[in-house]
Each structure stands twice: as C-alpha cells, then as structure tokens.
C-alpha cells in the first residue's frame, strides 16, 4: 500500500506518506507521534464522529451526534437509522436518543423544550 495524506490533528498540516502492507506500515513526513497514529488509523481503521438531526414526534427536530467516532464505512448505514428514528420532546443535551449502535450511542447536542 502507498498512501499520501494530510495530517489534520493540528494546524501544521504535515504531509504524511504511508508505505507497506498489513501491520508492517512505515510512516514518513509526520512531525510528531500524533501524526503517526492518525496516519496509521486512517490507513487501517478510519473513524468519524457523525452529526445530523433527528425527527421529534411533534414535527420539530433535534441536533444529534455519535457519542464516539464510528467506523467510516458505517456512516451511511448510521444515517439511515437516524433518519428512520424519532424521539419525544423535551430533550436535554447529552441525552441518549438511540443507544448501542456501532459501539456507541446517538446523543442530543441541543436542548428542545
């Protein structure tokens, strides 16, 4: 494998190159350890925090996010689940609206009275 990426962990934006196969990856171009970890994660198991909105039964909606990052390839599956779900107002910030999904929960990021 050969992959070039820009590190997004800090504003330095180092250009990192990853070579190798399986566990034997060599990382070059990073300035610090966090960059190396980021590059390896991006090449082996990239994850993302997903944010969206979820319907409330009364027709309004509430902003939500995954409480922890989920595997990147699950983003669209997760979106389908969020789109099909509804919750009931009132909702407080941090309240779990869909529990136990891809190893984390969907929580509200805004309060609705």
């Amino acid at each position, binding site marked *: 494998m050969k992959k070039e990426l820009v590190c*997004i962990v800090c504003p330095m934006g180092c250009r990192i190159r990853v070579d190798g196969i399986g566990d034997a990856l060599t990382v070059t171009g990073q300035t610090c350890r966090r960059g190396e970890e980021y590059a390896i994660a991006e090449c082996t198991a990239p994850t993302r925090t997903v944010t969206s909105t979820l319907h409330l039964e009364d027709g309004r909606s509430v902003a939500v996010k995954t409480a922890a990052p989920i595997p990147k390839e699950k983003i669209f599956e997760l979106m389908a689940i969020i789109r099909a779900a509804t919750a009931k107002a009132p909702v407080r*910030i941090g309240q779990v609206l869909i529990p136990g999904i891809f190893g984390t929960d969907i929580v509200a990021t805004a309060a609705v009275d």
Partner: protein
Amino acid sequence: MTEKHDIVIVGGGPAGLAAAVAAYDAGVTDVVIIDREEAPGGVLRQCIHNGFGLHKLGRELTGPEYAAVYAAEAVKRGIRILRETMVTAVSPDREVTACSREGILKIEAGAVILAMGCRERSRGALNIGGTRPAGIFSAGTAQRLINCEGYMVGKKAVILGSGDIGLIMARRLTLEGAKVEAVCELMSYSGGLTRNIVQCLEDFDIPLYLSTTVKEIHGRDRLTGVTVVAVDESRRPVPGTERYIECDTLLLSCGLIPENELSLAAGIPLDTITGGALVDERRETEIPGIFACGNVLQVHDLVDYVSDEAELAGRSAAAFVRGEISQEKTVTVSAEKGIRYCLPQRVHTDAGKTELYMRVAAPAERVKIVARDGERVLLEANRRRVAPGEMEKITLTPEMISGAEEIRVSLEAWK
C-alpha cells in the same frame, strides 16, 4: 421607556455571550445582552457539526453544545438576555435603541460591546449571469433550512466557494441523500480548513475544482444547471473551458461580511480590509466606550478565537465603566508585504502582552512573520505553512511595545 445599564452587548452569539461573562467576572455585573433570535447562540445553533472548542475548552463539541456552555455561564450569573429584540441604533454617546414586540426600548449604556457577527455574500454581490430561478441559496441559509427548519434544499447540488461553510454543507447534503456534483473555487487554493477538505470532500469523493467559477445560471422556475468555467491568474474566465453541470441547487459560500450597519450609523471608522471597526489592543473602537469583538470585527476561522477576543472586549468594557482608561498615546500597527491585515490596528504604548491577529495574503511554506518598529526587528516567528484560511497570531511583550513608534508586520522567507 429609558433604562440605564453599565454594559449593553449587541448580539447574543458566541462573541456576545463570552463578552458578557468576562465583563461580569471583571466585576461589572449590570450587563444586558440584546439578541434578535428566539434563543442565544447565534450561528452556532445551526452549526451542528463538531470541531468547536478544541483550543478553548480542550474537547471537541458541536456548535449548539459550544453555545450552550457559554449560555449556561451567562444564565448562572443572572445576566439578562433580551430575546427577539433588534437593536436599531447605537449613538456615539452610547444610547442604544432596540425594538421588540413590547415596543421601543432605549438604554443609556456605560459601555457598548458590538457583537453582531457577519453575514454571507449574496448572489447579487457576485455578479453571476443567467436566469433567476429557485434553488440558489447561500450556504448558511441552506444550513439553517436543513438543520433548524427541517427542509431539504435539493437533490443535486453544485457549491461555489470552498470556505468552511461550503465544505461543511457539501458533507451535510451528501449525508442527507443529495448528490454534490462539485465544489468550485475561484482561487487556486481552498479558503477552508484542511480537516474540512479531508472530512467533508475527500471522504465522500466530492471533486474540488480550483481556479473555477460559475459563469451562468440556467433554469426558469427551478435551477436546471450551471455553466462553470476555468479562470486565469487574474481570475478572468478562460474561453473554451466552459462546462455544463446539471443540478437543481446552487450553494454560494463566497465570503463573509461583518454586519456593521449599526457601527457605520454610529460613525465608527471601519478598516477597509477587515470590514470591521478599527480597534486598539483592548478592542475599543475609535469612539470611546464602544468596543467590538467576534466576526463583526474580523471574520475568524475558529470560534475559540472569537471567545478569546470577546473575553478581552468584555474585560476592557468593564475597565472603561470603572474609569480605567489609558492616557498613553497609541502607535499604529500596519500590515505589509504578504499580510492581508493585522488586528488591532493601533496599540497603546503602555499595553501589556498583546496578541496581533492576522491573515496572510496567499498560501506559503517556510516563512516567518516579522514585526518591526521602523527597521528594528521586534519579533520573528517561523511558520512551516501558512494559508489565508487560517488565522495567524504573534504575541508582543510590553517591552517591545513601550518604546515603539510604529509596528509593521510582514511575511518573509525563512532561511
């Protein structure tokens, strides 16, 4: 009805909230925030993506969560927030006029903090040719419609402008099932943060066309497509490079303009580059007792810096109310070669440690930011990479400032 308050803050977004809390904590507790929306938080209420607060709070929050942190601090202190109330005038002697459903309110303020934020450049300001169909939105309007009002704006979109809101909306539309055909950027580089290029475009294979703009809009009732064209170095369309892209939605993310109508009407001089007021190191405008902070002063890249700047303005307004005013002269700070602007634009010679915020004119690598007093070098700060999309800052010490006649900031090669 006329009221009297020590500090009146115009705008209850991240800047207004942080300024209010800081002023209160500096000992001036009679603080009123006036906001036109039904709830405080400003634009953060529609910025449901994450990435806020890493610098300031040490954790990564979404926009509504970041706003809630500051709103809770304001509420905890009993700071009054007038909602759905619009400030219509601020006079140079600090009389604030506002209107709400209850009628007209006049407040004599000890100090005023302007925190009105900014708004987006519209189609009219961009001079794009063609018809005037439905389906053309500023990126922030689309963001509000989708995230707050629950309306999807279209199925097939082109986004003009690769600033952060445009990039964030490319991802948001994709997640909600629309197809984003392209993001076009007039400049030869993106004005957005690298993390947004990676996580909003590359993650979803959305093409970014640099040095490209929208030349013509097609469609009668609803947008049917746009003609895009490559531009040369002087941003003129290159004939023969036109290409038609079918779409029903065009989002415009072409820059933000500080919303300074109130400041202009108050006679506050503005900086022609930032579009915000000219201020000193305490964020006081050229009219005594009127301060400015946040995106109404300069468009920031990160809300964390908005909060920092607002806290500074809040503390300064509190000091003004207590009569602590510098009697020293000010020296001008000017942006020279490679730097688009530098803020504050003037500094009192008795200033403490002072951060100078700036934007570079173009992306560059291995450069240094140099601050000089005349020809004498005060400070050199190396940067491996700089980009106009990311704000830079350097810190001057009181020793550097106290003897200075003028402060000039430039970007130079690093050898």
